[in-house]
């Protein structure tokens, strides 16, 4: 009898393996429909299923309406599981159930009701067998979290494409942001072809802007307002992935995040309710902006790449750290101020 159950069980397992995908959830009628159990004996099915569960080839689950349901486990995994102690397999199951999002140690404890020392031992042994791994959660950096060794952590945990080992990778972000700005910029400005350049030079320009433009050799013109060729998110995503800067393919969500950051930097603006994006500066200026110094160190003659200046940024009082204490006749006063003299020297050159 026992051998018959084993035999039918193994036939049942093979049939399941054949018919269902690894993650498929199946119920009693699904198993009966396989035509493996002779005459549809419920009793026999129960025994077979129990034996498969014992062998860790089936995982017992609770489906909808509290019905019993199963999932198949591959033979390799089953071997792994069989070697575990009951406590360990309990822990393993909890971790397994959390999938790619990982589970916090304290949650494992509450779900398994194991004592902390036992739990620690189980986790340690599972980790040493390389069945599970600990992961770093960006949202809760202090929590110890585990997931199955074979899984890649989900974006909720890693924080998306912008995190490397749970830390925001600012160099990567900046490189990519520069790339996107440049790419978008080439699409947002019309570059006057060489043949036409003679014409465009005659444009009457009242300000110094024109000189700057002619110096940079290439002339860029804005497109009319109803121009519809500005880049979209899809375009930017494909361009970024084509460029080979990123080790992994970036999803559109990540790109949107980055583009929105660029919008806050006022490097891009979104048009048509965020469908299209346009670069504020033309490609030459964008390139010049890459090796720009911080605003405070900018020299007087250099072209303005930032927001420009105003009275407060120019006056010595505007950048004075002690302006709140300054008053005539006090220790810090306009008479004794030590910022004015260097400032004259800088501005007047004497």
């Amino acid at each position: 009898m026992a051998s018959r159950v084993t035999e039918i069980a193994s036939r049942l397992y093979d049939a399941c393996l054949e018919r269902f995908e690894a993650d498929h959830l199946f119920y009693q009628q699904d198993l009966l429909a396989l035509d493996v159990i002779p005459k549809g004996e419920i009793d026999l099915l129960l025994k077979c299923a129990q034996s498969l569960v014992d062998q860790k080839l089936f995982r017992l689950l609770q489906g909808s309406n509290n019905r019993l349901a199963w999932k198949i486990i591959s033979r390799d995994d089953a071997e792994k599981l069989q070697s575990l102690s009951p406590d360990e397999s309990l822990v393993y199951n909890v971790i397994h159930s959390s999938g790619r999002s990982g589970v916090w140690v304290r949650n494992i404890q509450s779900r398994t009701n194991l004592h902390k020392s036992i739990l620690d031992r189980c986790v340690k042994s599972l980790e040493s067998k390389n069945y599970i791994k600990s992961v770093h959660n960006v949202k809760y950096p202090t929590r110890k979290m585990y997931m199955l060794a074979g899984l890649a952590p989900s974006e909720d945990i890693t924080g998306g494409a912008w995190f490397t080992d749970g830390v925001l990778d600012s160099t990567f972000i900046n490189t990519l942001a520069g790339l996107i700005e440049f790419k978008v910029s080439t699409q947002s400005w019309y570059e006057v072809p060489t043949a036409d350049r003679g014409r465009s030079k005659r444009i009457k320009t009242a300000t110094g802007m024109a000189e700057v433009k002619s110096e940079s050799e290439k002339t860029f013109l804005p497109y009319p307002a109803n121009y519809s060729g500005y880049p979209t998110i899809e375009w930017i995503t494909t361009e970024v992935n084509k460029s080979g800067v990123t080790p992994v393919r970036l999803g559109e969500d990540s790109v949107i995040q980055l583009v929105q950051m660029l919008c806050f930097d006022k490097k891009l603006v979104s048009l048509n309710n965020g469908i299209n994006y346009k670069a504020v500066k033309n490609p030459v200026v964008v390139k010049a902006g890459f090796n720009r110094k911080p605003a405070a160190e900018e020299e007087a003659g250099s072209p303005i790449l930032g927001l420009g200046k105003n009275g407060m940024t120019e006056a010595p009082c505007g950048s004075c750290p002690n302006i709140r204490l300054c008053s005539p006749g006090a220790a810090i006063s306009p008479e004794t101020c030590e910022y004015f003299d260097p400032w004259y020297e800088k501005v007047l050159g004497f």
Partner: protein
Amino acid sequence: MTMSQYAAELCALLIEDQFGDLFARIFTTLQRYERLPLPRLKFYSRLTERQLHHGLAAMIQHHLVFHFTSLEDGNTYYAANPQAAYYLIRSGKIIHLVESRLGEYAARVMETILYLGHVPIKHLETLPDLRYLAPPAAANGVVKEEEPGEEQEPQELDMEAGKETNGANGDHAEEVLQKPAPLHSTLKALASHGYIIRVKDAHFQSPEDNYIEAHKAASNRSDIKMLKGKRLTEELLQKTEEILRERTDGDLSEGLMVNGLPRGVKRKIANGVPESASKWRQTDHNGTNGNHADDDEENDWSEDEDGLDNIPMEPSLVLRVNYEKLDVALRNARFVDMARDDAAPATAEVYETLLRRIEYVTKRCRDTTEIPREGEEGEQFSIPIETYKIVSDVDPHLDLSGCMGPLNPASASVNRRGKRPLENGVNGDNHYDDNEEEDNADDDDDVSRAYEINQHLQLLEQAPHNLASHVRLSDGIKWRVGFRGLARKLRHLELERLVEMRYGDVALRVLRVLHAKGKLDEKRLQEISLLPFKDLRQTLASMQAGGFVDLQEVPKDAQRQPSKTIFLWYFDPDRVCSSVLEDTYKAMSRTLQRIKFERNLRRDFLDKTERSDVKGNEERWLSEGELEQLQRWRNMEAILLGVVSRLDDMVAVFRDF
């Protein structure tokens, strides 16, 4: 208007610098004690009756002091007018603006009016300075500039006395060569632009007094007395406003406008000199033409006079400067600067033309006395302007088509050439020829120009500028400007410049995120701004220390433990703006104090240079070393005053626009 400590200090400094100690003493006393009757003022200021009388009379002449005679107790109360005191600093900018719009002579008239506070026209007629078109000799100009500082005898009510003799002396030789100046048409031009207004009795009283009086007058009306309850309050308020407006409005522009254009501007189109509308800070456009144009303009001016212009303005009319209107013009100049920052020059010029049209019909920057809190401020649109008006105003030689890309880049080269053969052929070859006029007459050309102008303005309507917006009516597109939004934009621009300088562009991003999203905790802030925690925290901490961002604590339980508290960062632009405004006042007054200090350091030397025999003949009487020292001092003073004026630009943005 209540003044803060630093604003009051600044006003006192400005008055002292401009008019001397006596004025400053009276002004500070009035600022410190607010409204005072004469005996109390005398007691607090410790001045003699004679000094006080002289001082007050002259200060009233300059609108630096309000006075109000109560009908109830018969006392006259005096109060400081900090607004007028502050505007002393803006006079240079105002003169510059008038010069760029209406020429040198108009600027001189404006300067005289500014210098005198208010003045009847018949007095202006007698001034030798304004009798001739050409400016007085160069040396005299220098004298005039420094005069306010040195003229320390405010007892002299007629401040012109000194100047008059001065002017007369300087002009001796040239007198014969110069033509009489068109004072009246210049005044009309100024009046129709709204830059000068008629002085009314109410202008001598503080706005509060005016309001109370108007309120009294309104409530005494028989039709108001019949009303009751809510209707009464509403009606009363409305009537009060009406009376107030009637009493303070000294607008002279009505009746002087020709086809919606003020006098003195149409010459630009009439003689077709390719003078760009943007004359703001742009004196050196094509050299030969510039020199030539001066003569031309003047000739033109008198020729321009049609029947109406020959009627002189009423000599008894008393004039003063209309700061409200000038602020509108200065604000528009800032908007144009904003457009120029990242739009093509031609686009900016079209925009300027639009703004100029709007300026003529905009009386003041805003209706409320205080800038409303952000978010509670509704948009206030200007009067919409039809495109054809802009077409007629814009410089006919301005190349509108060459500075915009094609709609369809693939077929660009073909299209561009095919589309505008006329432009390339006619305009390209003989650009400055007269057949331009014919082109203008051509209807097709007008239509295509209107199309192009619409294109330019549409570009400005788009993000990131949003500088204009259009209304589509049955008879075509009209353009208007949302002033409040743009004024807000200007304020933020100034703040952002400050933040960029002090904390770097990372801080700028954080600030913008906070402004766009409201209150955020650190985690969310990081997700949006994509900054490493370390940088973010440092930036936030330093910005908090500088007063740009604030932290709100939201405890989860009654114990208020830090571990169980949510911390939210936020940026309150209103608060930051007002604190930056205070800092700006302070920076201005510190800079002015520094000038005073530097001047005191060189007192002996400067006394020598200002001696009447040395002045004007420096090269003859001063050694080389002294000349160099003088030059250095002048540079230094100029740059310090320049900084003060730049700071005033910020005050304008934060307070006046």
